[in-house]
């Protein structure tokens, strides 16, 4: 929580090395501002992000996750981002069933040059997750 009483979500952005990570870097170089709620995890490809990584983060109480990969058809490894799309769709269903809420997980496709898009998507997920409130597991993380 911030000093004001507004809930400040903690969000992880899994960023592909070939696009989103470079886009985030470019956003920094251009001195573009985006919310500090996001922590970036550098990934070789969104196809390398296993379902377990996302579920583990939610279990530990993260409020939202953004999976940011290359534009469809533009994956450095040909189809890693397409696989990531299928996996995130499946995890979203599971999160709904579990009670965490699938809307806390988003996937975005962008290129290395799309720094404004990266910033916009980050702002969107922060606003959406802020409206959703904390991960229901957050206050229960200590238990077992």
């Amino acid at each position, binding site marked *: 929580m911030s000093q004001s009483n507004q809930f400040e979500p903690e969000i992880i952005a899994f960023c592909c090395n070939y696009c989103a990570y470079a886009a985030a870097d470019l956003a920094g170089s251009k001195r573009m501002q985006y919310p500090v709620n996001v922590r970036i995890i550098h990934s070789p490809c969104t196809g390398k992000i296993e379902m377990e990584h996302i*579920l583990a983060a939610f*279990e530990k109480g993260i409020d939202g996750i953004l999976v940011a990969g290359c534009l469809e058809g533009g994956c450095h490894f040909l189809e890693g981002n397409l696989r990531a799309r299928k996996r995130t769709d499946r995890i979203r269903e599971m999160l709904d*069933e579990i*009670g965490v809420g699938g809307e806390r997980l988003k996937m975005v496709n962008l290129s290395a040059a799309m720094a404004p898009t990266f910033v916009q998507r980050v702002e969107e997920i922060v606003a959406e997750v802020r409206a959703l409130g904390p991960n229901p*597991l957050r206050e*229960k993380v200590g*238990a*077992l």
Partner: protein
Amino acid sequence: MIVATPKPVTELKNIIARHGKVLFVGCGTCVTVCLAGGEREVGIASYAVRMARKIDGKPVDLVQVTIERQCENEFIKDLAEPVSKAEAIVSFGCGVGVQTIAERFPNKPVYAGLNTQFMGTLEEQALWTEKCLGCGDCMLAQFGGICPITRCAKRMLNGPCGGSKEDRCEVSEDRPCAWQLIYQRLKNIHQLDRLDTIVPPKDWTTSWHASPRKILRPEHRV
């Protein structure tokens, strides 16, 4: 191989609702290959069930172990220690694995974590199709290696029926007519004459309808 599918998270959660410490056991053979009950799938199910229970305010202690094969006692004996510490076991093996573990540990509740489906083959990535019903009296030699008992919707031994359209089954357009496949296959291997013989009604006493089957082969007994 035996093909299975995972049970929904809610069902798994309900199955173990009365327990606080549960052992999830994966199987390293068929269900690992069909992406349903291997080490990774057990891990995913554990995350999901643990989270669901926490949200319900009833946290559960889940321990995961994956053994090479659940359908053989030789491999199950390695489970003795983790089983002794758990209130219940959820087996992510096929129905055979679940029951073999239950027999090995008669005082522990053992539940199924998967829905066992069929004996089938991997057609392409993440697509399995049923190929064998295990009828106990294989007739594939007569049908060019394509089983009408498994793959024909009517289980016809003297097909095709009048419902097939082109090479598709009338039950579903996604489903090839097994008898079309049989005809094509016999033609390719120059054995169309096999279709000249009427196949008599099958003896089903070797199949699962009769009773649980048992095989004893004295030459391999010790």
